[in-house]
């Protein structure tokens, strides 16, 4: 297998293009934000949890809201490249495929993070949350969990772009793969919010998951990109 070449200049070119396009269209952020907002509000109204119950379930709700919201955006992650065959023009350039992939992953990571930041105050308000553990660790857990979701989501979205039922296929492949990271993310967030256990092991597991899956996706992306 060829070692993926990653030149930061190419990476920045792809990332800047994705950020510029999103800044103009706001497609991904808008669709994710409304979806995540709905999930958070509906869960809050449906269960009307007490403060202690909120601490137990908040991690899971945040994770599920992010997961479902991200899938709507990740399904569209390569749509612009497919429209008017821009992906073919990119395939013809000597720029390394890994930089195209990583640029897209970082862009998606930033979009999901923006949604999480906008959602955070509402989440705290609706679920009346206050962390009993080390709250600052959430600033580590959420990005690690989001990266796990986005790196796999971007990869599998690329894998399914040439299939007819790609919008169905992405969650079917992504959700099972994401389960270990989701468990780690939920357990770590719950441990931080309740202060009842140590989240260290779960955070390490998330970090390990991120390293392994980022490496695998980077190694395989060129094959996926040029597959017919």
């Amino acid at each position, binding site marked *: 297998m060829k070692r993926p070449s990653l030149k930061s*200049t*190419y990476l920045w*070119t792809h990332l800047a*293009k994705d950020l*510029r*396009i999103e800044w*103009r*269209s706001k497609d991904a952020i808008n669709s994710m934000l409304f979806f995540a907002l709905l999930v958070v509000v509906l869960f809050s109204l449906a269960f009307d949890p007490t403060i202690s119950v909120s601490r137990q379930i908040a991690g899971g709700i945040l994770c599920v809201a992010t997961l479902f919201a991200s899938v709507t955006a990740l399904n569209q992650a390569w749509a*612009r490249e497919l*429209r*008017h*065959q*821009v992906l*073919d*023009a*990119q*395939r*013809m*350039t*000597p*720029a390394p495929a890994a930089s195209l992939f990583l640029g897209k992953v970082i862009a998606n990571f930033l979009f999901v993070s923006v949604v999480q930041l906008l959602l955070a105050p509402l989440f705290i308000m609706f679920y009346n949350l206050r962390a009993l553990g080390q709250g600052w660790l959430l600033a580590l857990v959420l990005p690690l969990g989001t990266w796990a979701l986005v790196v796999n989501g971007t990869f599998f979205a690329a894998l399914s772009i040439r299939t007819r039922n790609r919008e169905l296929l992405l969650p079917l492949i992504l959700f099972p793969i994401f389960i270990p990271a989701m468990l780690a993310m939920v357990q770590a967030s719950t441990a931080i919010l309740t202060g009842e256990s140590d989240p260290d092991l779960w955070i390490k597991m998330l970090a390990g998951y991120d390293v392994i899956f980022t490496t695998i996706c980077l190694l395989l992306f060129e094959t996926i990109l*040029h597959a*017919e």
Partner: protein
Amino acid sequence: MPSIARLENVSRLFGTFAALRQISTEFETGRCYVLLGENGAGKSTLLRILAGLLQPSYGKVFVFSGPGAGDTPQSQRGRIGYMSHAAMLYDELSASENLAYFAHLYREQRCLDPADALRSVGLDPALERPVGQYSQGMRQRTSLARVLISQPELLLLDEPFSNMDMGSARQMISLLGQFRGERRTILLTTHQRELAEPLADYFLTLEAGRLVSTVAGPRLMAKEQQ
């Protein structure tokens, strides 16, 4: 004249449908080849194989240096330019932004300045409108500018004159004439044979995936008679 690309018994199947059947031919450097044929004859498939975007099901394709290592279209990507039916541009970006983006991706080779490339196809580089708001003809010209920006040695154009008014098409032909004058090779497909005549050195005709004829164009015949 040295050859820039060679196909040896190239066939391409899509399921059970044979889009190309045992094509063997050679393209000389600095020539313009016009590929003719009905819809579905295999013209676009042939171009995509030469561009390295499709692999032949059978047979071999060599570009630039003849048989040997490192001379497949996939290994020579930066030296081949391909313009398809679609614009291959981002709708949300202006023509200059699109071209600047692609110029960055070809940064390891000598590229044209995006503004110069746009001027060469008759577009104003100061135009800030996104490409999504352009007319078909303007998109086509921007797409040509995108291909020219990397100064490819082998230029593959799929229906470059479709959606163009006569004036724009003539302007494109004159631009392609200059391009060929720099000893670069052009292979284009068209249904408008008469438009391509001033440019063509050879006409190749495909029928149901087979190469049925290769005929010298009037330009080459006139040269030979002299």
